[in-house]
């Protein structure tokens, strides 16, 4: 069966907190996993005494175990893929880029050339 690296929601109502787990794909979200390899706190927090307004999110991860599980074929979910592929510092996965080209605005109706009507 497929093995997934995914998030299991803990915490309270309006205060989510996730365990990063390695589990069989078809088991329930919060069932006992094969292994807990970290945590993800999605609530952005400010540093104490920092008025700049810059917020951070805390992630705890056992990178060695994460690399092992990926080595033996575990599949990260999209969210976990995003976390595992963050820059060089973590860089366990190749980032899944949706579209590397910079976005261009779609054509406005005014710019679309109207087919010329034959004048009688």
């Amino acid at each position: 069966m497929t093995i997934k690296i995914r998030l299991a929601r803990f915490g309270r109502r309006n205060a989510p907190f996730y365990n990063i787990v390695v589990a069989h794909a078809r088991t329930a979200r919060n069932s006992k996993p094969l292994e807990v390899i970290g945590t993800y706190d999605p609530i952005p927090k400010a540093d104490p005494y920092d008025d700049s307004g810059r917020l951070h999110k805390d992630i705890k991860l056992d990178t060695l175990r994460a690399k092992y599980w990926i080595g033996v074929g575990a599949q990260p979910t999209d969210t976990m893929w995003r976390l595992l592929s963050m820059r060089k510092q973590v860089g366990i996965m190749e980032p899944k880029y949706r579209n590397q080209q910079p976005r261009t605005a779609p054509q406005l109706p005014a710019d679309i050339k109207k087919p010329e009507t034959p004048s009688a």
Partner: protein
Amino acid sequence: MPPRIPTKSSASSASALVRSSFASPCTSQCLPSCRAGFSTTPSRERSTNLRRAFLQWTRTIGANYRQPKPEGGPNYISNARSSALQPFPLNAQFRSSRVLDEQARELIWEKVMRQGETLKAVSAELGVDLTRVAAVVRLKEVEKDWISKGKKLATPYSKAVLSMLPTKSFRPGVQNQPLEPINELHIHTATQKQLFWPTAESRQFTREDAAKAFHAKMLSADKRVPHPELIQMEKNLLRGMSPDDARARFINAAEQSERKAAEKQMKKAMAEEQATKKVNTKRFEFRFKEVDSELVGKDGRAPNVVGWKYGMPHYDRKKGLVKIPTSVP
């Protein structure tokens, strides 16, 4: 008996009677819940001899105790036996303790922040608890920050409270009476058990040994006091060192211990900084901290396991547990 609503004047009782007589035929048709109805008869004020005597007292002698003393400080009801710090004349165990006044707090802040004295030295000199000295400095910093930002302070409130409390002030440059005992030991849980520890009479049983008897890693009381340097100073004095010399050594030792603590804190912060990998994105900074997921213990329930545990209650909302932060970040 139905509950009675006291009314202001007895004149309204007549109208109440009229209303109740009108209401009475309705009661048979009303639902049982509304049948109880409220009586609007004014309740008679109960007055006992004691209450009357008390009211009499508040008008005569008691009037003197209504306001704090004009020169400041508490205005307690005291008799010949009770002292000035005893708010309740019959409760000799309750003593209100003195609080630092504005000038004393300013002096502490001045010593620590302007003159660069150590917290321990200031605490030992003025006889103020070490944690209180730290708190005073912290709060004074907040106050000064507010003043510089133009925030309004609750000065009238502070003045009113201080006028009603026994206060303590210090005179700079002279030996002051201490505010409180500063060498109080925090009661360690390991020392709360009753212990029978047979030792040979010929053997010297010191405080070090006593600490070891309670727990292998426990420090002796001499090392657990807030100012272990003061013990060394007293030892030096007993050895015949001049007081000025002993004092200078104490200040030096206090400085060293403070520097050591600061270095330790800095080292810890540096180690934490190095262990976290920071990834900046447009909106947030993601901080990755390395953990070891294999320290789960035999049954996967070791106390420091990463993440929330399975099949175990989480006591974050349990009654009686402290839920507010207990330390300053």
